[in-house]
């Protein structure tokens, strides 16, 4: 179980994340939603240990992650929002390097890498430089790197970015399958339809603060709104989208 307790992150005294607390349980898919700049990726980075919280604590299976970050990293898989990869390496070389950095057994790592590349449809391009990969292919490499060591906690920040329809369907089923096998899945996305379909529990962030933390069914009932889009618009979208689009059109027309 992942537990985020009263976490703050300040940048030059400006809060990016304020008093964030939530729990993501094993076997559940927790959707982490928010508009751009709401603090989603900052929270993800704090959970991975890439940045330190200004205050507050993060626990995984009852242990404070900061106490033993290295053991925690062995149990975590992370897909970042931006597909930054070493483009001078081939897909195969990159994945082998990640397996070596994770101290995986060479033989089983190679078996898993070949298997993942085959299942993601990248095996034919495994020895081609990543610089010539499309965005979707890079996303598949990120997913392979995040999953190959069979992590207990899976952090997915916009994992569907750049994927085609077929790959998106596979990933959606994969996330559900991983949760069913007892993994903790924290999943951030702007695709509300997908979130609504696969997440059992959602956390909505607005301007760095949590404005909702519950199951989708309960939120629907409480707010008397039929869809997640309606709930999200009410909680996390301040502007009147129609009025703004009209203003933009007026502005460029002037």
């Amino acid at each position, binding site marked *: 179980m992942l537990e985020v307790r009263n976490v703050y992150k300040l940048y030059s005294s400006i809060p990016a994340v304020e008093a964030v607390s939530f729990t993501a349980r094993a076997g559940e898919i927790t959707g982490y939603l928010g508009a751009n700049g709401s603090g989603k990726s900052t929270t993800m980075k704090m959970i991975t240990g890439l940045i330190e919280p200004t205050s507050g604590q993060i626990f995984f299976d009852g242990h404070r992650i900061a106490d033993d970050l290295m053991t925690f990293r062995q149990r975590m898989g992370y897909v970042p929002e931006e597909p930054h990869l070493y483009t001078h390496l081939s897909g195969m070389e990159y994945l082998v390097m*990640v397996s070596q*950095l994770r101290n995986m057994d060479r033989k089983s790592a190679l078996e898993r890498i070949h298997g993942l590349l085959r299942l993601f449809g990248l095996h034919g391009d495994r020895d081609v430089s990543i610089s010539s990969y499309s965005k979707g292919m890079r996303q598949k490499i990120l997913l392979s790197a995040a999953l190959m060591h069979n992590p207990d906690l899976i952090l997915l920040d916009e994992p569907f970015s750049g994927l085609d329809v077929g790959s998106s369907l596979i990933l959606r089923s994969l996330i559900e399958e991983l949760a069913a096998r007892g993994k903790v899945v924290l999943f951030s996305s702007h695709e509300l339809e997908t979130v609504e379909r696969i997440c059992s529990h959602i956390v909505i962030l607005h301007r760095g603060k949590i404005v909702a933390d519950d199951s989708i069914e309960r939120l629907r009932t409480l707010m008397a709104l039929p869809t997640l889009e309606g709930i999200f618009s009410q909680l996390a979208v301040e502007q009147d989208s129609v009025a703004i689009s009209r203003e933009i059109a007026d502005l460029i027309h002037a």
Partner: protein
Amino acid sequence: MHNDWAVRKLQFRVLYRVFFMRVIDLELLSTDADPTRLFGQFATIFTSISFFFSLPIILLGGGHMPMASRWTAEHFFIETTMTVAGLIAVLNWDSAFPDRRDVLVLAPLPVRASTLLLAKISALFAAPGLAMIALNLFIGLAWPLVFISDDAGFLGALRSWPAYWVTLLAAGGFFVFTLLAVQGLAANLLPRQLFLRLSAFVQAGALCLLLSVYFLEPSLESPAALTAPENQRLLAWLPSYWFLGLFQQLNGSMHPALAPLARRAWIGLAVSVIGAVAALLLSYFRMLPKVVEQPDILPGARTVTWAPGFGSSLKSAITLFSLRTLLRSRQHRMILSFYLGIGLAIVVGYIKTPFAGVTSTNSGISTVFLLASILMMILTILAIRVVASIPISLRTNWILRVTQVRPARHYQRAVRFSWLALGVAPVLFLLAGAFLAAYPWRQVLGHLVTMLLLGLLLIELCLYTFQKIPFACSYLPGKANIHFAFWAFLLFFIRWLKDGATFEGRMLNDLLSGMLMILFLAIAAAGVRWLTEVGGSSAGELLFEEENAAEIIALKLS
């Protein structure tokens, strides 16, 4: 009309600034880094060199200088300025012509190709131009006073300054224009993918050629040497002598022996300018569509994955990552070649001079070879240390952070191994190949063990301040001052090393002395390694982001 001109002027200024700043890849620098500081550092180096060379004139006055010495000085300044301009143009190679990023960003904008071209050319010439000015800031004021011919009057004396500056700019410009012409020609004649692949080799070749010519060209600064029939073919291929002729022609002090060289300088300059302008025009109006239509890298080009194991998985990961970066990143390869090339060229040049006082001995390995191998080992390790501190892609190092499942000292061991494998081992193989054919195996073995221990010692010294993963952590210009240490080493320690080489030669002649020397080096290497290990154990985490020292960090009170 006026408005259109103002818009184009503004566009030019914006583009010029963007292209000029691209001399440094800003994405590689630490968030604390100030790119203008780098320019400042380079300008300071060149200005300091200029001041250093002007000191004798400033302190002692010009006075009368014999013709031969005057010609030597004139040629030295012209040749040095040309080489500096050429080197900067070579290092600027990738920004000479618009790449895919330029085209994709700028093509949808209402910017004329001519504005783009003008901004690019201006930015391209700004860096070598500023370097030439900085290098001659004091030299160009003081030395023209010495270069005045004996029979020149007051007007003749005044003529010396513009003659000097025009010659320098023409000489530096000649190299820059020639490089542009060669690159432009290749870009237009070859298919784009082939050009991109060959371009890296042409760039490295140009770098080697510039350095080799600068350090190895013979000294011909006398009327007798310049008129000797056996030297005429050589002179036809040495542009620095052409511009010596040009300077004397502009200065009004031309010796008849230099007249053909001056003519060659004018012709060479004209051809290079025409070639560069033609290449640039062709590139901008013919190559731009090709850049968009043809991808930079052909997909599907199958390569074989070569992944040997090097002991632990971490050692394999770090060593292979370093090797692949050095082999595939043009920027890193260029920096490594630059340091190794310039270092070795200085060494070769130095060993040739009588000042070095290096002589071969009849018994045992030649002192010249010993000195050369010591220098080769030191320069290789220092060059690797310099290049390893420059990241290949800073935003990508998140994967190394989230996969750090071992303490920092394990990484330090892996880095040590990678530097041994990529720096020390190749040098030892090279030395073994060169020495075993010529000298008794026992002495060669003794020398190789000495070199191995020297390599280990140097690696430990370099690792002492390197809590990083090579090619992956941010670079804060000026913090480690490693570049300055490198050049300071070259300038000040070569003579001591010659004594070291002589000492080693003496020790290797006797088995017991040789063993004692090796034992002493082994103890020194073990001692420094212990210090590095202690430092590595105390540091829990790797240093991914370089920061300025605490006392100069802004308080950030806002």
